[in-house]
């Protein structure tokens, strides 16, 4: 078990290394010259451009730029934003709590709606409850987030006046206001993922309910509720956990459109602004942190599998 954990942690290093090369290589393909953007008014002056290029190492070969970046990264230094002249690390630390709060709230909403709906749907397969759950899930999956967001604002902010239409208040400042500003975007994000959770939970539960051990549980005289929630659900959870780690990772990588609509200053907004302004260090920093989040979540997922499925503990 501990050997497995060590090996699993060891796998993370090459994964992140390959990722860092990909990030660095791909952004070389982005059109536009960062030096010209940074020079601003003086973009016509070759002297200024050359100075900027020298300062940012843009005149060096790519591999040299990469190694210099990697070296600083290993020392915890994500560099400076070219555009706003702030350390990338502190920019990310500033946005991270926002995205974390929004992402976790959306995730909680998605799981709280999607997993029970999937269980009920499988237990009442091909009956009205199943049809209703499927129809609602399909609607949730296929409704675009931006449209849903606008509708929410129109209904709850403009018509009813219950919630602020946009903006963000940190949790530490005023938790009530903070929840009021994030509940709508969290529902928009979570609602669409809830449908995905419902579909996957339903499929896994239907598979589990057809297993021989479910027949054994029924032969034992267990009430159907216990058969479903104890014997079948436990075995159906593995694919749902896999999905959960992926979806949570995506939520924490930032929700570009939804953040835009609700004016939430999270990761999504940070990376979009950085890409448009060729602010490479910020792009690289955000992507590295996102990758780290994904890798960590997948590790947590693997550990959860072993908690759920005793067969995997032996491996």
């Amino acid at each position, binding site marked *: 078990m501990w050997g497995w954990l060590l090996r699993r942690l060891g796998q993370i290093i090459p994964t992140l290394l390959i990722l860092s090369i990909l990030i660095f290589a791909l952004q070389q393909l982005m059109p536009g010259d960062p030096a010209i953007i940074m020079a601003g008014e003086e973009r016509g002056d070759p002297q200024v451009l050359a100075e900027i290029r020298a300062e940012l190492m843009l005149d060096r070969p790519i591999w040299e730029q990469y190694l210099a970046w990697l070296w600083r990264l290993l020392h915890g230094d994500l560099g400076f934003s070219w555009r706003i002249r702030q350390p990338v690390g502190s920019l990310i630390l500033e946005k991270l709590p926002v995205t974390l709060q929004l992402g976790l709230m959306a995730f909680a909403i998605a799981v709280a709606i999607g997993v029970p709906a999937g269980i009920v749907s499988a237990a009442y397969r091909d009956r009205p409850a199943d049809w209703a759950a499927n129809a609602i899930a399909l609607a949730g999956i296929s409704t675009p987030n931006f449209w849903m967001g606008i509708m929410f604002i129109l209904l709850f902010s403009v018509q009813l006046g219950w919630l602020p239409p946009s903006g963000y208040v940190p949790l530490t400042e005023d938790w009530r206001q903070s929840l009021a500003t994030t509940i709508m975007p969290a529902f928009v994000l979570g609602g669409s993922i809830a449908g995905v959770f419902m579909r996957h939970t339903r499929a896994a539960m239907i598979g589990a309910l057809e297993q021989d051990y479910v027949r054994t*549980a*029924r032969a034992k*005289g*267990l*009430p159907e509720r216990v058969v479903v929630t104890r*014997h079948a659900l436990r*075995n159906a959870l593995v694919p749902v956990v896999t999905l959960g780690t992926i979806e949570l990772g995506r939520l924490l990588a930032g929700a570009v459109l939804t953040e835009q609509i609700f004016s939430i200053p999270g990761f999504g907004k940070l990376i979009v602004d950085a890409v448009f302004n060729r602010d490479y260090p910020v792009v690289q920093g955000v992507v590295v942190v996102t990758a780290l989040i994904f890798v960590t979540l997948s590790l947590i997922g693997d550990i959860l599998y072993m908690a759920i499925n005793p*067969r995997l503990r032996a491996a």
Partner: protein
Amino acid sequence: MSGTTLEVLDLTVTFATERGPLRVLDGISFGLPTGRTVALVGESGCGKSVASLAVMGLLPPSAAVTGTIGLEGREIAELPPEERRKLRGAELAMIFQEPMTSLNPAFTAGDQVAEALRLHQGLDRGTAMRAAVAMLEAVRIPEAARRARQYPHQLSGGMRQRVMIAMALACRPRVLIADEPTTALDVTVQAQILSLLDELRGGTGTAVLLITHDLGIVADHADEVVVMYAGRVAERGPVARVLSTPQHPYTVGLLGAAPRLDGPRGTRLATVEGTVPDLADPPEGCRFKTRCPFRIAICDTKPPLYDVGAGHRAACHRAPLEQILEAA
């Protein structure tokens, strides 16, 4: 300890299918004497598993069940589902063909045995677990306390079937249905499991319905046998009589098809010619007539279960067969 624990009368099961109703059991009757083993024999698809699931009340809602199922004099076929559920595991227990997949991989062996005790006898967790360990000892699992903490994947096939038996017998049921309990196991383990069942049955007075297609097992472990063919009872009676003087041509064929160690070497195994009829469109009258060498005109009418003496009955117009065989 005499009398009948389970009395099944005229049990009929019809499944609603897209092609129309499919009658997979057509009025079968049999009894389980207290503390005895009755074997239910027949080819795949003859309805023996459906019969056992009907007794348990485990058929899907798409199955329509008629007839009566008497458990110690009490009619249970018409009980509401909640009452049927309470009987399962407490009075009626079942073990299955596939010990590899019949235990839940996510729970320990002890947990799964204790679960039935907690449910039906209201034992608390600790007491139930101690009782479960005692039960695992009773089914001869060595180091039962350690094994109780293990998961199914850590146990061998024979060990898992022992856990299934411990689970089924934990609440001392009146009836145990064993659906091909040894088919998936090694031959040496088969014998151990069957002897264990015999022994436990002797101790508790549980009546056993042993579903099998292995006539060797029937000869060694059953008191009575019910031979089924295409959803009906072909023949039933005491094992010694049915196996030595079968009165239904299908049973004769089955016995011919059973390999014998003491038979002359090199003899071809006899088989039953032809195939099982389609239950969606069964033949009129006797369902075996399409494969029967003794078919005559009367076989176009449904044969009753003729009494051929000493509790032996056969659904064949030509019974007793000895006369035909001698004439031939």
